[in-house]
């Protein structure tokens, strides 16, 4: 694999990765807004993505991911705002921007009447590779990158969903783009293919390519991204490494479980009166509850329990996963 020879970028959340490398900006989104008649799909989105970053854009359905990507792919003009690739205004110079960018839409289309190599050869020719030998080399290299060299002569209609995704990814890589925009690239991929995709993308990022990936499956993104950005109802809620995103989202909710030596009823009565506590459950010698507050408040709560002569035997804390966070974000608050 030619593209896999470069070292992997630093993992998600590490100091050397993500925003820490922000100096130059490869993708610069400023105050982006996309309206459909009276519906605002993307509202005042501002993002700066440095070269070599793999930015995961997450959010529930209708968050504005696809609209943002369509604007980035120059397929749609925003209602307001500007987008720059390496300083090029994509609305003013779409042709130049398209040369820098590779776009892979959700449910990417593959013509059923072509073979895999014919599909890639067509796009290689369309991107200006006129020499047949060069085209062959380039298509073979891209097929190798996505691990599909063995399916070169297969018909596109014979491909599985995951294989189709990979063929389209190979097509997206044909003109060696500096900015990759991938809308749900891993949907339909088996774990092995996902691993290959991750490796391929990390290799590309290591060569300086900037990659934007959308997904609503956070675990999938956290495996391959150097930064995350959370959208909901068109607004940017958080942007940064996983930890930064968690704190930006104000995730102070966690489930605490206490193992007691003393009878739990007295402690339970006291805990039930605390405003920071909900969903209290009492078992024989265990109490579990949802606690909302920062680490300081949590320490104070435990201290208060000890002062009330509650004899703690064990203590367990479980924070919400990013997945649960996303569900929280997407769920509208109950009506009063």
């Amino acid at each position, binding site marked *: 694999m030619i593209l896999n020879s470069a070292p992997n970028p630093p993992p998600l959340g590490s100091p050397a990765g993500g925003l820490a490398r922000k100096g130059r900006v490869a993708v610069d989104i400023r105050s982006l807004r996309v309206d459909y008649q009276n519906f605002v799909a993307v509202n005042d989105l501002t993002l700066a993505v440095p070269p070599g970053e793999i930015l995961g854009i997450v959010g529930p359905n209708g968050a504005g991911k696809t609209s943002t990507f369509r604007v980035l792919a120059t*397929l749609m003009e925003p209602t307001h705002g500007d987008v720059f690739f390496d300083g090029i205004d994509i609305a003013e110079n779409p042709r130049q921007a398209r040369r820098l960018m590779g776009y892979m*839409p959700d449910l990417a289309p593959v*013509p059923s009447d072509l073979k895999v190599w014919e599909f890639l050869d*067509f796009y*290689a020719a369309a991107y*200006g590779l006129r020499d047949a030998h060069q085209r062959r080399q*380039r298509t073979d290299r891209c097929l190798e990158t996505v691990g599909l060299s063995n399916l070169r002569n297969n018909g596109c209609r014979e491909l599985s969903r995951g294989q189709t995704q990979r063929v389209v990814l190979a097509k997206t890589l044909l*003109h060696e783009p500096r900015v990759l925009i991938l809308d749900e690239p891993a949907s339909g991929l088996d774990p092995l293919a996902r691993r290959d995709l991750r490796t391929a993308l990390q290799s590309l990022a290591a*060569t300086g390519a900037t990659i934007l990936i959308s997904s609503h499956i956070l675990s999938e993104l956290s495996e391959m991204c150097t930064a995350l950005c959370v959208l909901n109802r068109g607004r940017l809620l958080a942007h940064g490494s996983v930890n930064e995103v968690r704190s930006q989202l104000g995730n102070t909710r966690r489930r605490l479980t206490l193992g007691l030596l003393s009878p739990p009823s007295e402690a339970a009565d006291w805990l039930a009166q605390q405003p920071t506590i909900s969903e209290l459950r009492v078992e024989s010698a265990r109490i579990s509850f949802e606690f909302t507050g920062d680490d300081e408040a949590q320490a104070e709560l435990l201290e208060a329990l000890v002062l009330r002569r509650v004899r703690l035997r064990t203590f367990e804390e479980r924070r919400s996963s990013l997945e649960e966070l996303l569900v929280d974000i997407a769920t509208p608050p109950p009506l009063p």
Partner: protein
Amino acid sequence: MNAPTTDSDQNEVSAWRLWENPVLRRYVRSRLRSRDLGLGLCITLVLSAFIVGISYSLGIRSESDPVSAARSAIIPLLVLQAFILFVMGTAQVSGGMITERDEGSVDYQRLVPMAPLTKVLGYLFGLPLREYLLAASILPFTAWAMARGHVPASAWAPLYWILFTTAVTYHATGLLTGTVVRNRRWAFLISIGMVFSLYTVIPQLAKFGLVFFKYLTVTPVFYESLPELLPEKAGAALRIGQNFFPTPRFFNLGLPEVVFTTLSQAGLIGLFVMMLCRKWRQEEAHLLSQFWAVATFIAVQVVLLGHALPLIDPGDLFPSRSFRWFTSQAIDWKPDNKEALAMIAVYGLFTTGLACVLTGIVTPDRERQIRGWRRAFKNGEDRLPAFGDTDSATLCTGIISLCGGIGWYLFTHALLESRWFPGHHAGLHILIIHCLILFAVTGSLQALLDAQGGRAVGMGLLFIGVLPLMAGAIIASIDNDYLHVGIWIAGISPFSLPASAPVALLSLADSETMAVRPIQGAARFGWIVWPLISLWMIHRSRTHRQSLKQRSLEDRLLTNLTR
């Protein structure tokens, strides 16, 4: 990863090097696969062989002349070729384009750095490749029949050329509808409907004075070549008949049919290709720019008048003339006043309809206006680019109305002051009224579309345009006593204005006839009321545009502040 190395401008495929066109080559691969092509070829070859065999043997049996017998196979073979190219080819182009768009491939293509013209030509000639090959597979049979039937090259060469240009015209129509119409089902229906109209309905307008339209079909050249294609006796008889009906010549120029048909079709193909290129360049672009909309409108007026005017004095323009040739009254034939009025009304209706279509094309909707203002402010401009897609189409509509009014007046003038209607005069007031009618209809359409959008136009058409016509028809049909009221109500519809204008304006109308007076009353009412309404609506749309500008400016300022 290095900087992109592939897509420099030097490497871009030229639109005219069709053999290098990636889209065309993609279809060479997919549509000419031996497995799929083989069956089609077999069926075509067997059918062609059957046609030649049966026609020749029956011809020999009935005519006892090998030349005539061979000729009898030509027309069925041509029909088969026309069916493959026109019907199957157009369905393939339209359906193929709809599928491409449905699957999202069009979005992909849009991102590829190829010139829009390269993409359009690739699809135009790539999608129906199999149909071209199937039609070509019949050529050996027609070649044999023509050689055996001693058909001169001067007959078959123009015919085949026009068969090809007509096929391209229809394919371009299918490609345009497949590209533009968003709904899959509608796209297919509209595509078939447009081709059907181009071939059957629109050429019928030739019978009402708009003779140019038959040049959009293969008919004039086919008709000219027909005597050489038919068995000898039938061909000779047809040639005598053709001498009675000389074909119309553009401003009496001696252009051969094949040249003029080619030019007419090339004009239409060029127009469609321009529309498609605009759509490829930017999905949200108008089909035509304001400049090209005006140019198209003027070109249509010129070709309509160019064909119609020279036919007035010989009388060949009048539909009744062709009927009378077959009767004994042909010698003392004279056109009827009502016939002339109807022809002027048809010209007016067509001109108004075309003006409305072009107005609809160049009028920007609300979203487009907002985007236009946003871009203008971003570039430090305080106004929209003049005659751009986002600019108001009021001036363009005004120019179209003026040109349409002049064209309509020239037609009316030529007809009224011809030798057939002595004593009648077409004054300049007719020109003013014609312009006023066109402006009233197109101006209000443009203003409504600009300020309120397509839905409001639909409602307006129904309640202001169609409803008076329906109500008038019902009232008029109740009793003769209500006839005046019914006609008057129907006459106030803006749709009626172009039709009622000749009756109300021209001395050809018999004012003693019962129905004429209410038509004149309603028309005069319309000439005053509709232009005023149109002006008021234009004023409203102007205010609306100003408020959009203000809102966009405020949005821009707010965005800059929050940055």
